[in-house]
């Protein structure tokens, strides 16, 4: 299964699940990365991490290891 950090820059993907039940996963869910939502990977910082996402009409930045928790539908 693919995760959000593997999505090419500029591409969009649909979230299928957020793994883990700790506070980081909860924060990702609260920020709108819920199963079913469409996310676009806008870009990455010059050093490759973190990523810039666009979802639900706003932009969000998360690190790659956090994006790895977000499973996407192929």
């Amino acid at each position: 299964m693919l995760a959000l950090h593997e999505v090419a820059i500029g591409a969009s993907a649909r979230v299928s699940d957020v793994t883990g039940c700790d506070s980081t996963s909860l924060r990702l869910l609260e920020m709108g990365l819920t199963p079913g939502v469409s996310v676009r990977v806008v870009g990455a910082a010059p050093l490759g991490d973190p990523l810039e996402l666009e979802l639900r009409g706003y932009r969000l930045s998360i690190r790659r290891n956090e994006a790895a928790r977000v499973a996407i539908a192929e």
Partner: protein
Amino acid sequence: MNTSHAAGVQNQKTPLTVVLLGNPNTGKSTLFTALAGIPTRVGNYPGVTVEEKIGQFNHQGQVIQLIDLPGTYSLSPKSPDEIVAVNVLCGKMPGVPVPDCVVVVADATNLERNLYLSSQILELGLPTVVALSLCDVADEKGIAIDVPLLAARLGCPVVRVVAPQREGIGTLCDCVLAAPARLPAKPSGLNADLAAISAGHSQPAREAMARYAWIERTLDGVVRKTGAATESFDAHIDAFLTHRIWGTLIFVATMLLVFTSIFWLATPLMDLIAAGMDAVTLLAESILPAGALSSLLINGVLAGVGGVVIFIPQIAMLFFFVALLEGCGYLSRAAFLMDRLLVGVGLSGKSFIPLLSSFACAIPGIMAARTIENPRDRLLTILVAPLMSCSARLPVYLLLCGAFVPNVSVGLPWLRLPALVLTAMYAVGVIVAALVSLFLTRTVFRGPPQPFVMELPSWRWPRAVVVAERVREASVSFLKNAGTLIVAVSIVVWALVSYPHNEQAIEKEVTVVREGLQSRLATLAASDPDRGTINAELAALETVDGLEAARLGAAQRQSFLGYAGRCIEPIVRPLGWDWRIGCAVLASFPAREVVLGTLGVIYNLGPIDTGAEEGSTALVRRLRAARWDGTDRKVYTLPVALSIMVFFALCAQCASTLVVIGKETGSWLWPVVAFLYMTALAWLGAFATYQIGTAFL
């Protein structure tokens, strides 16, 4: 309106407690200022580093106490901010009454995510009013919101506000007065949403999905977007500013501008303050009769006040830029750009600006750590920020580098050794800070990885009111909270330097000094270069000023400070220092740069201005001629100079920084920790430098 008025009259005696809550970056602080003006109380909630901000205002005869809660995305208690928010809302926070009304600030340009928090608040069943903020920005972006329909769906009043223009403020106040009379409807259909979600997802995922499903249903037909172009305009700016080359260049240029501003633009203002303080001191000297009282007022109180006020230009300048960058949305982009660099040592991108500012002065730097929401990252940043070489260390480095590091080129003709040593001192601070941070994240602050889930807010123009309020708040909180303590420390140090004071013992010591110089002169060969210095020192003792300086030096050597310096000599010996250096370092506890002035007094130069060319060359001459008591061995050699510099690079000899750490963390444990670990590292660093230096040089 009628019910609101009735309620207002009824409760005229008891103030209404209203809580202001919302996501970060929603213009909540602008709304606070528009409603209540300058807060009546700013501080920390007991035991946590969460800011407590309370204001008061009057609407239609009803006194309203407004509590501003920190910006949060959710009410599920994960961070201290969220725990405080939940406790205040549930009436469990000691000293805070149960709120009569909750005002939820929701960003009109991004309602979908903002309503997540609103859905949780509506579930609490407290009287609630939703304030739609940033409506002017939403209008510009072509986002139209059907306010009556939204209010009907949410089951609570919804008010459009543009806080800087005061649009909707009156209506909001009316709604707040009316709110306690009617409870909101609980979010309808949330439970049904939850039941409809397949059991395949985790419980937190199901709750979030249910809330967003409810939000999507609530907003259906409420929000209409007519300007899709602006969204892509924002994305274009982001693509440019986070570009590998252009983004980095703009970032470096911005940071250079901020850094040089606090470093250089603040300097004329600081000089002005220093000149003003000098004038006041001169005036005080001319009015007050010489004696213990005037010494206390001038060298204790006035010096302390001057030492406090001098920081204001840098604090104000830094917070001006921070508020500007925060207001337009670049602050989170800067954290985004720098995160990878800092995450390796256990910090995050948000630590960058506080750490960079600490190169000018740790005090505004530590205060700027307020922009770091994550409490662990914030504390870690505060603890390592004083290791950045601030501008107070520069005079010490410059004097010692210039006087004791041979001015030879190393490798390349333009690469001089003193410049290299100076650079090395800055590097020492940075490297040690990285190591300390790594060590702390693996020991004291060990725990689950701290998430870096950060909103990148839309680009917008910074609001002048917000910038002004930020600058005012930072300056006032420094003066009020830290200022008094810094003055107190200054008075204590004055007492330690001035007492005990015994005229006879001073006279005796001046005679001993004169005889010591004469006997040394007798043993020196006619060609010895030190003869000139000693002759000059002897000649100075014959003048009024020179004698006064020698008496001042004797008084200082006989004071508690001199006594303490002799006591700690066994501790500073392994660093290559004599007791006089120990004294000067002890005396520099209020501020590092004091060390040079103290050395001047100890070496009988009197209160010289070591910042001026004349004063500094006089001091360097005395330092070069200094010998270990009763021997012919020079005190200041290259390893000793390096050892002093390394000590100053790492030590916590800055009472103001320690006081600010105490105030910003809300606990006196952390300044103690900072002082102990920095002093230990400084001693070890100076020890290693001296021992390795003497072995190789």
